[in-house]
């Protein structure tokens, strides 16, 4: 499972910065045109998907149980905000901390396995969390935790105003996104890439690969938790849907559709899927069928995802994504090599 759009460890090309600036400007203006609650949901899911993609695209581990971190943080934040009366920033911090701790425990146990085993193990752990949330008194079971107060950020900023809340969520998203970008474009990110491409070689070079993988797992879990905590405050609600394994499946789909291993892919995928679900909310169970159809289609024919397909045209030849290793089109590879030899610096 490997598809990378930009080389980790090197500084991102100018085009990426320009696009990022443009998108941020768009995001800042968006709530005046679109329904803010919808946008906030999309942002939370985007952060969740990015956190998931960190593990899948850059470490090569498919976790099918990421909803455990998302949902647990959601519950913890909801509970601390409502029952303990914590201000929003503290409630979110506590949620993230618990998600990270959970990430450490699950990661430690799951890292021992690879590939499919890893996926199944994470899925089963997530299910354990689900049943725990179902039974535990503080989560409210099927009722969930309702009427979570948004409170005053740092004691002064009233988050009940939709526009204010939106900018807060946007800031949280950009922070989380920034952490991921920073992690990838760093020596840490380079080691991760090395591990993904050839773990035995990385070990032979002296890297404690287990530790790197675990660290990436915890980071991914913490950021997924950040997304969940924020979501709890947006909807003022924490429920079993957040820890359900179908939520884990959705984030996989978002990343797959958007482009595994691309920076913006999960964001695109998240926005797309949230929009689709919004549109089709009246259509009942067809949403599930359509999501399944997209999954199948993507796996069969569209593995690079949207960003994977569009990136070369948008960002210039420099950043052509590698298609997933198994399906290398030989001709294109040759052409690529020639082009790169013909002279691009970098």
């Amino acid at each position, binding site marked *: 499972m490997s598809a990378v759009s930009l080389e980790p460890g090197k500084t991102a090309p100018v085009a990426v910065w320009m696009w990022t600036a443009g998108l941020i400007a768009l995001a800042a203006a968006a709530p005046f045109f679109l329904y803010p609650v919808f946008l906030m949901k999309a942002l939370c899911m985007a952060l969740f998907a990015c956190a998931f993609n960190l593990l899948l695209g850059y470490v090569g581990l498919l976790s099918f149980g990421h909803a455990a971190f998302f949902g647990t943080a959601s519950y913890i934040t909801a509970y601390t905000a409502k029952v303990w009366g914590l201000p929003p920033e503290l409630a979110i911090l506590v949620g993230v901390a618990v998600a990270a701790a959970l990430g450490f425990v699950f990661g430690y146990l799951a890292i021992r396995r690879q590939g499919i085993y890893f996926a199944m193990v994470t899925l089963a752990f997530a299910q354990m969390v689900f049943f725990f949330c179902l039974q535990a008194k503080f989560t409210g079971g099927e009722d969930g935790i309702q009427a979570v107060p948004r409170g005053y950020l740092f004691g002064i900023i009233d988050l009940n105003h939709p526009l204010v809340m939106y900018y807060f969520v946007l800031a949280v998203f950009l922070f989380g996104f920034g952490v991921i970008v920073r992690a990838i474009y760093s020596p840490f990110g380079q080691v991760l890439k090395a591990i993904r491409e050839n773990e035995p070689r990385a070990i032979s070079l002296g890297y404690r690969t287990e530790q790197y993988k675990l660290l990436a797992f915890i980071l991914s879990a913490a950021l997924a938790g950040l997304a969940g905590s924020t979501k709890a405050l947006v909807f003022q609600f924490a429920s079993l849907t957040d820890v359900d394994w179908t939520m884990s499946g959705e984030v996989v789909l978002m990343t797959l559709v958007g482009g595994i291993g691309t920076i913006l892919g999960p964001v695109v995928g998240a926005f797309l899927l949230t929009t689709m679900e919004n549109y089709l909310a009246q259509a009942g169970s067809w949403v599930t069928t359509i999501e399944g159809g*997209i999954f199948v289609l993507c796996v069969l024919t569209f593995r690079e995802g949207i960003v994977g397909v569009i990136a070369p045209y948008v960002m210039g030849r420099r950043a052509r994504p590698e298609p997933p290793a198994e399906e290398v089109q030989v001709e294109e590879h040759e052409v690529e090599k020639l082009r790169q030899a013909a002279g691009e610096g970098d």
Partner: protein
Amino acid sequence: MFEWLHIAVPPAPLFFAQLLVGLINGAFYAMLSLGLAVIFGLLNIINFTHGAQYMLGAFCAWFLLNWAGIGYWPSLVIAPIIVGITGIGIERLLLRRIARLDHLYGLLLTFGLALIIEGIFRQQYGSSGLPYTIPPELQGARNLGFMFLPNYRAWVVVASLGVCLATWFVIERTRLGAYLRAATENPILVRAFGIDVPRMVTLTYGGGVALAALAGVMAAPIYQVSPLMGSNIIIVVFAVVVIGGMGSIFGAILSGFGLGLIEGLTKVFYPEASSTVIFVIMALVLLVKPAGLFGRTA
């Protein structure tokens, strides 16, 4: 408060009764994890669609009864064949295309298929169960003293034991099974011997799917025919397979029944934990023996 009573002194009748109910659940876990283990062990495919195919088996039995007037006993044979054929279709058309790719794509593809199937049925039939009556020959219950054991549930335990043992026998002790096992290890060599490996792969997938459908038919009278029945049970089955060892047929059978019993036991002492206990055991097994109880190290 009542829980303390349970922990201190479980009434013996309740104890045995819950164990028996657990054994019945275990029968389904065993049959389903058997199909999964066969498909994975021999074909290296994670068949996430397994739960949906279990559901298809139950629905097939329901359709046969309500549209064609075909009762339970013939459905036990017909439904698995029908669903098995759809399985063959899936393998031929879809799975074969991604066989060269990372196995995780197989997981995602079958996951997507499961969503499609479940979505369609949920749209048509809602998400509460449709009734399927117990066949008249198996209605009624036997008073065992400590509980009334419905005859149908007794039949389920016996039948699934039989099916599991028969499958294990075919794979481990017959020539056909030997070919299958050889084909997994070294398909090119086996092909060189003139054995049609792709066809065996297809038929094996169809066979595993048929097993799931058979479990579905047997579940229909007990668990109500519902589009959600597959997704409810699939993850537990995955956990069972991980515990038993991903490639081990015997491990799957033993773990299935064993975990059903443990679940029943938990219901006596600490009912709220009964749904989590299987995953806790899985975590423990992973710590101690990562390949599963009977698995071969990957």
